[in-house]
């Protein structure tokens, strides 16, 4: 492992190398070495470690193979036969600890009931190379949070060593498929081989089941073969089971993290407990990019229980005996912030700037097929529409927080984070420390949704703790959490379709501002021969970040609204129109048909009610949703959502359904109420009274149907979100004749419509 100083030197060297044109190619990126060994206490540890630059002839074939399976995930077998899965992803409610350990157990034939799960420490050995591999080597998608990190934090190449990110719906897709299944199968092969040696019987006569090896009637626990197994060389490409042979996967296993979440014992970041700890809270410049011009803290400092008030440059911090005292004191601090042009930025100026960028700015083409210009000319008519969506906050239930203790050249950090290893590196940078001296202790996250991939809140905690000289639990108020987010971008999108004489699209052109990730979000899967999708950059001072499903939220809404408008224009039913454009896409068709059937598409509905349909593909999962809205009360009320999803294979079906339900409600909040607006350069919303959530009394019923196909496993955490907004607005159109081209729905008055 390299030290911080060496790392800096290496970074410099790499930068120099890269500028000389040395590309970070597959060959130079991956070297692999297989390891099995005995850990302290006699536990067998199986993993396949990957070291960059370690290229041996033996591995050349492996490295150049287009379909290699690399394993960085470890499985331990203790002498008491406990099998422990070490999971390199944070739990934020997506059930990932359960899904990934089940994947390991499935291939290993381990006893899942008795299996232990441990979240991987923020160590390089547990960096998630599967994620890096997908990114660096042209995998299908670039996971959202990763993009942000790559842009902001580190050099691409060096950074690929620091990946330990939970986001982009990648955990099952990449870590699970790429690492867990393979690690399990490799471990099983080692144990069987060891048993064959110890018992002196042919390998073919042995089988593994529930953490035991069997030879006829004779059986012995895995642990008995651990020592021998540790001397053997694991197979990098063990034989994996066919999906039809799965015993655990495809079953709805109860989630392992749930019992602690019903009795109050689950430990979230905010529950960290450190001896001698004080509590801190902060207020950052309301206009991002500004800093403290003047601070008067006399009154705050005099308050009882206040330990210190600090001017931290772009934020003010108070440390006290308790959070409430710190917050009371912070409210007494008088701060004047620096001013700049950004103080005049508002909702109106931002969208005017976007319009200008689309009118006259330089555009980058993202997707292109056929000849759009020619097709538009030949079209019998052209249809255009402009849509816009606002900034959105993540609004994790658990406000941003982290606990830090900086002393004797060392730092301990306790936090719920989607990116522990990246956080460790950033912390080391912030403190000017060797990363070896930074320990990140992870905890459950009270919601992540992309927000906890950005380590700004952890950074404040370490800075404040360093200043205070004691361990500090730094907690942001809800107001701070709302106003200092990294927002889903607000976007203006213009759409243009060239239509044939029947109103079917022969050309599709989209222009929009901002492009984050993944690039395919703005692609169209419909059968349209001429397509061009292009974007213009139009940055503002408002901080942006990945938000559940990233660019798919806005593009799902744009595309599925526009398609619906084209259907109406062609005087066709929205469902039939889509079917026509999907005739060569059997997976999409099946998903669409299933959702339509579930909802009884076309059935007679009571007055004021209507159904809307949409279909999106994101993170390799196809989801269609049919929404039933009721407009009879004058404002949209979503009664029911029928959701059909094809993710190839759902590892934990009930968990997958829960993710769809969750994604739908998350997106529905955005569709109905979600908007962060900017006035005088600052975010206007502050708490749940003005950043409104869907609640029990306006939550729809949701039915989810899972479709199993032979496709590669797709994501679960995000794909439920994109289709909901357009399904709702399409239904609202049907009920009222009012086309919603701007979210959220709360901006629109339906008073007279019903």
């Amino acid at each position, binding site marked *: 492992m390299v030290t911080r100083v060496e790392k800096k030197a290496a970074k410099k060297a790499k930068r120099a190398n890269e500028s000389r044109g040395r590309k970070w190619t597959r060959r130079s990126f991956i070297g692999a070495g297989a390891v099995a060994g005995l850990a302290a206490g006699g536990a067998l540890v199986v993993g396949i470690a990957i070291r960059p630059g370690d290229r041996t002839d033996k591995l050349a074939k492996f490295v150049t193979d287009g379909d290699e399976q690399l394993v960085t995930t470890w499985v331990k077998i203790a002498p008491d036969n406990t099998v422990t899965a070490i999971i390199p992803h944070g739990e934020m409610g997506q059930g990932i600890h359960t899904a990934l350990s089940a994947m390991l157990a499935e291939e290993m034939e381990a006893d899942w009931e008795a299996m232990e799960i441990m979240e991987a420490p923020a160590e390089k050995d547990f960096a998630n190379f599967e994620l890096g591999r997908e990114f660096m080597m042209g995998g299908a998608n670039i996971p959202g949070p990763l993009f942000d990190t790559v842009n902001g934090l580190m050099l691409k190449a060096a950074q690929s060593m620091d990946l330990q990110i939970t986001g982009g719906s990648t955990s099952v897709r990449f870590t699970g498929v790429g690492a867990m299944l393979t690690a399990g199968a490799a471990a099983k092969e080692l144990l069987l081989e060891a048993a064959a040696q110890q018992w002196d019987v042919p390998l073919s006569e042995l089988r593994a089941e529930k953490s035991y090896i069997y030879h006829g009637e004779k059986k012995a626990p895995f642990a008995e073969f651990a020592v021998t197994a540790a001397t053997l060389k694991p197979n990098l490409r063990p034989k994996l089971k066919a999906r039809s042979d799965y015993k655990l996967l495809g079953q709805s296993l109860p989630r392992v993290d749930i019992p602690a979440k019903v*009795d*109050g014992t689950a*430990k979230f970041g905010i529950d960290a407990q450190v001896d001698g700890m004080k509590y801190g809270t902060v207020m950052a410049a309301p206009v991002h990019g500004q800093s403290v011009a003047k601070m008067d803290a006399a009154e705050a400092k005099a308050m009882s229980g206040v330990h210190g008030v600090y001017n931290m440059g772009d934020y003010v911090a108070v440390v006290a005996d308790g*959070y409430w*005292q710190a917050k009371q004191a912070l409210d007494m601090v008088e701060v004047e912030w620096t001013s700049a042009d950004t103080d005049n930025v508002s909702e109106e100026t931002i969208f005017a700037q976007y319009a200008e960028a689309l009118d006259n700015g330089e555009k980058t083409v993202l997707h292109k097929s056929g000849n759009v210009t020619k097709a538009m000319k030949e079209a019998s008519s052209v249809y255009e529409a402009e849509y816009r969506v606002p900034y959105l906050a993540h609004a994790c239930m658990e406000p941003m927080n982290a606990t830090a203790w900086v002393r004797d050249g060392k730092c301990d950090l306790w936090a719920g984070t989607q990116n522990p290893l990246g956080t460790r590196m950033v912390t080391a940078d912030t403190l000017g420390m060797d990363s070896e001296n930074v320990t990140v202790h992870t905890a459950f996250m009270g919601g992540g949704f992309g927000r906890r991939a950005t380590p700004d809140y952890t950074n404040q905690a370490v800075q404040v703790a360093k200043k205070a000289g004691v361990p500090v639990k730094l907690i942001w108020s809800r107001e701070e959490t709302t106003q200092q987010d990294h927002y889903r971008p607000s976007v203006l999108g213009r759409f243009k379709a060239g239509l044939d004489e029947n109103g079917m699209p022969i050309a599709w052109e989209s222009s929009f501002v901002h492009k984050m990730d993944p690039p395919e979000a703005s692609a169209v899967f419909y059968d349209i021969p001429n397509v061009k999708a292009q974007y213009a950059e139009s940055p503002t001072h408002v901080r942006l970040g990945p938000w559940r499903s990233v660019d798919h939220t806005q593009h799902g809404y744009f595309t599925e609204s526009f398609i619906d408008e084209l259907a109406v224009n062609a005087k066709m039913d929205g469902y039939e129109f889509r079917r026509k454009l999907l005739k060569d896409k059997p997976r999409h068709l099946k998903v669409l048909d299933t959702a339509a059937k579930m909802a009884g598409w076309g059935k007679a509905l009571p007055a004021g009610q209507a159904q809307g349909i949409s279909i999106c593909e994101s993170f390799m999962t196809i989801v269609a949703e049919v929404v039933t809205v009721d407009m009879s009360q004058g404002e949209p009320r979503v009664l029911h959502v029928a959701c059909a999803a094809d993710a190839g294979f759902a590892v934990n079906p009930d968990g997958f359904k*829960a993710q769809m339900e*969750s994604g*739908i409600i998350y997106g529905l909040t955005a569709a109905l109420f979600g908007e962060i607006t900017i006035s005088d350069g600052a975010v206007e919303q502050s708490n749940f009274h003005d950043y409104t959530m869907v609640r*029990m009394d306006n*939550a729809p019923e949701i039915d989810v149907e899972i479709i199993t196909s032979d496709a590669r496993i797709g994501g679960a955490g995000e794909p439920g979100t994109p289709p909901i907004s357009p399904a709702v607005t399409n239904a609202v159109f049907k009920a009222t004749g009012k086309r919603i081209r701007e979210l959220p729905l709360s901006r629109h008055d339906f008073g007279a419509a019903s």
Partner: protein
Amino acid sequence: MVQLTVNGKPQTLDIDPDTPVLWAVREQLGLNGTKFGCGASLCGACTVHIDGEPVRSCVTPLSDAEGKEVTTIEGIAAPDGALHAVQEAWIKHQVPQCGYCQSGQIMSAVALLKDNADPSDADIDTAMAGNVCRCGMYTRIKAAIKTAAKEV
């Protein structure tokens, strides 16, 4: 000095009586199951019972609990550790996702079922509307409350 009972145990707290009950139970008593969500009675994450009534502990000063019985999520299981029917139902329906809101949801549900053994959908909507679940597990919460209603 404020005297009260928390989960059946008498406690004397030597802090500012204006301190919200939320921070007193979390920071003074180390009962971390009760969560901070908004600090303004807008989300329900901090719900506890005072003399059996659900309250938002983030806006309830400690002085309001003087001489009263406070129950937190840590105090609703039976003394032998057997989970409350609501907690059992929460597991059966696999309700929690991130889980952060769930202490508050469970405390609201327990209070609802104490007053209303057979709540209708509308009763559940009313009683639970103060509790936000950002992970959107409302259909499961509703189903779990109905299951628990059969047990209570």
